């Protein structure tokens, strides 16, 4: 069976939209007892995590640690084996408009016949609703978002003619145009040149200044202390999380990266095998 699970949107279905209240004190992202398995292989095991509001959070861990899966599970793109995920205290499907998603650049076909502006406009499709055409107001909003990421000059370019860094900025603009409260970004710095990386970091900081929460899957350990206020060290389970200064220590990193299969993860795998066969 497919691992993606599609929930129906309230807004896209024309039903009432429940407005989440970021001021209510509920964590932007609250994960409880989450376990996820692809086929029979567990990817996340018993994850408990509350993201702090208004912070830049780095999600760090080795390849296959379940970083992307964590984000995708929060977005209901991956079926949960158990546990719960809440966004601002509500299930994600009730507060989709509060969450901006920047997927990995490799997930789409950049040869698609579409220009940068049209991609960014997709961030407004839910606001526009079923079967209605894109109006000038939405195109203006998309143009503004492109301006914010420094891509206004490239609005009419077909996306294959953009560099990797420019493509990534287009994806970022698509999330920005939603004007969300929580941003989930899957490796926005991969395949990006140094100048673009600096530009993206500045945008993330601006978002934080505006009171948004930004969670970023990140690969480059060297830049973690510079970029992020908080880190979530992940290797199938949560190794540690908290303010970068306290948590981003050699011991914790060793626990995250050293010895890929810890006793716990071996036990988890055995359990999952036993449970499903």
């Amino acid at each position, binding site marked *: *069976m497919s691992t*993606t699970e*599609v*929930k*129906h*949107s*309230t*807004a*896209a279905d024309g039903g009432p939209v429940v407005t989440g209240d970021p001021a209510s004190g509920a964590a932007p992202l609250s994960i409880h007892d989450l376990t996820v398995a692809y086929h029979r292989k567990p990817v996340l095991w018993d994850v408990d995590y509350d993201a702090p509001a208004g912070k830049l959070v780095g999600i760090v861990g080795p390849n296959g640690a379940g970083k992307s899966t964590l984000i*995708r599970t929060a*977005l*209901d*793109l991956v079926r949960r084996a158990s546990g719960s995920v809440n966004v601002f205290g509500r299930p994600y*499907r009730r507060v*989709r408009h509060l*969450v901006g*998603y920047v*997927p990995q650049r490799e*997930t*789409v*076909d950049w040869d*698609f*016949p*579409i*220009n940068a502006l*049209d*991609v960014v406009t*997709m961030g407004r*499709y*839910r606001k*526009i609703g*079923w*079967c*209605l*055409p*894109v109006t000038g107001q939405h195109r203006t909003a998309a143009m503004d978002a492109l301006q914010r990421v420094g891509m206004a000059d490239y609005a009419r370019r*077909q996306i294959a003619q953009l560099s990797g860094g420019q493509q990534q900025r287009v994806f970022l603009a*698509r999330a920005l145009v939603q004007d969300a409260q929580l941003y989930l970004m899957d490796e926005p710095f991969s395949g990006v*040149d*140094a*100048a673009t990386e600096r530009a993206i970091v500045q945008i993330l900081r601006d978002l934080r200044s505006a009171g948004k929460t930004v969670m970023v899957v990140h690969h480059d350990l060297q830049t973690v202390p510079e970029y992020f206020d908080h880190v979530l060290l992940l290797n199938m389970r949560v190794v540690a999380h908290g303010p970068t200064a306290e948590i981003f220590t050699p011991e914790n990193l060793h626990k995250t990266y050293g010895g890929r299969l810890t006793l716990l993860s071996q036990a988890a795998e055995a359990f999952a095998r036993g449970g499903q066969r």
Partner: protein
Amino acid sequence: MIALWGATRSPRRGGRSCLSGALALIVMLVCPAPVFASADQEKRAGRSINDTRLEMPTWQEIGRVVRLSDANTRWVVGGVTMLGLAAGIVGTFLLLRKRALTADVLAHATFPGVTLAFMMTVAIGASGKSMLTLLIGATVFGVIGMLCILLIRNTTRLKDDAAMAIVLSVFFGLGAAMIGLIQNMPVGSAAGLQTFIFGKAATMLASDAMLMFWAVLGVAIMSILLFKELSLICFDAQYAAAQGWPIVRLDLALMGLVVAVTVLGLQSVGLLLVVALLIIPPAAARFWSDRLLTMTILSAITGLLSGYFGATISALVGRMPTGPIIVIVAAVVFVISMVMGTKRGVIAHAAHQARFRARTRRHHLLRDLFEWAEQHGDAATTEPDDHRPTPRVSLDHLLNLRSWSSGDLRRSVRHARRADLVTDHLDRTISLTDTGVMEAQRIVRNHRLWETYLITHADVAASQVDHEADRIEHVLGRELVMQLESIAAGRQPYRVPPSPHDLGQSSPAN
């Protein structure tokens, strides 16, 4: 006119004759009516569109079909034309969702459905030729075929392509076997069923055509309404799902539209070829456009033209199947698009390559001239505000610097002279003009910035760096040059930096 006769008489001549026939039809469209008057018109009068005798159409008949004066013809041509239009629109999304082969499987899987529906209606005593029943049978089996693919994919380790090949051939074989059974049945006349394989618009009754016309119109409207949603799932399904769009239902809607076009196209295009009407028009349109909306419109027009010519030619010539003509018309458009397409056509691509090569040669020429001046102590040329003439360099010397042929060099010199970058002199020498000096400064500067970057940041040996830089400097964009400038800190802006390597010994062939 002769071409049309040729097309109908000798099937061996295939595509080109049919194209000429199609062109002849266009000519006739604009011709005044009296041209169609012909001596033997009485003899052929009253011939119906359902006639299956192979006879050459008279001018009057051609005129009647083309001007759609006959109600039956009007519906058939209108229906198939609309089918082409809808297929062009739906096919665009099918192509971009990368489901082209799925549609082919679907079309083949309808075959046993048609034959089974025929057998069942015969068994209960009806005539067996009720179009609606046959199409319902086709739909049911088309859907069963799709489910079989899913079943094989999800329960075994077989990959998609294998699952599709199995379902396609098994279902088609099943249908063919059942045709054999029908022919052995006492009431059996499966003649009508065989037209479902290659399609024949002329066998359609006005009622069939009307059903098709309205159904296809509905399909076209549906796909226009869902344009935004379908384009979203085609481009980025994951993002669409995260945004709360119901991907599964949208995919089902797209497949539903494909099923509708396929089933409605069975009688006119045939199950073997209906996938071509879905895929060739958007594939051709892609060569002309980088935007989805334009591509969809062009694809719809291609489909519409294919449908129109397929239906008219088939209506005129008794034994001419519609499907092949539709495919040939679409294929002609495709080949023209592939060669001439402005966005990614072969000619556009070659022209782009040629321009790039010419630009590279021009860069080389200017850089060689500039560096020669530098080496021979004429520092004036490196100062931007100086307007003294630059030294002359002989063509033979330039020829030895690189591995370019004398023809290449002469061409480059000619182009550079036309662009007022160099002046050539009678003694086979050339020199840079003022504009040439400015342009050469820009080029040499980029080259050296890049070389410096390679030496300091990419650890390329100084003796190799000229060659390495050569490959990339011609494509440096404004953004990248600015970055290189910021990296090469301490340099004076807008001046040409000195070469990071000895100019004399290292000018390897590029």
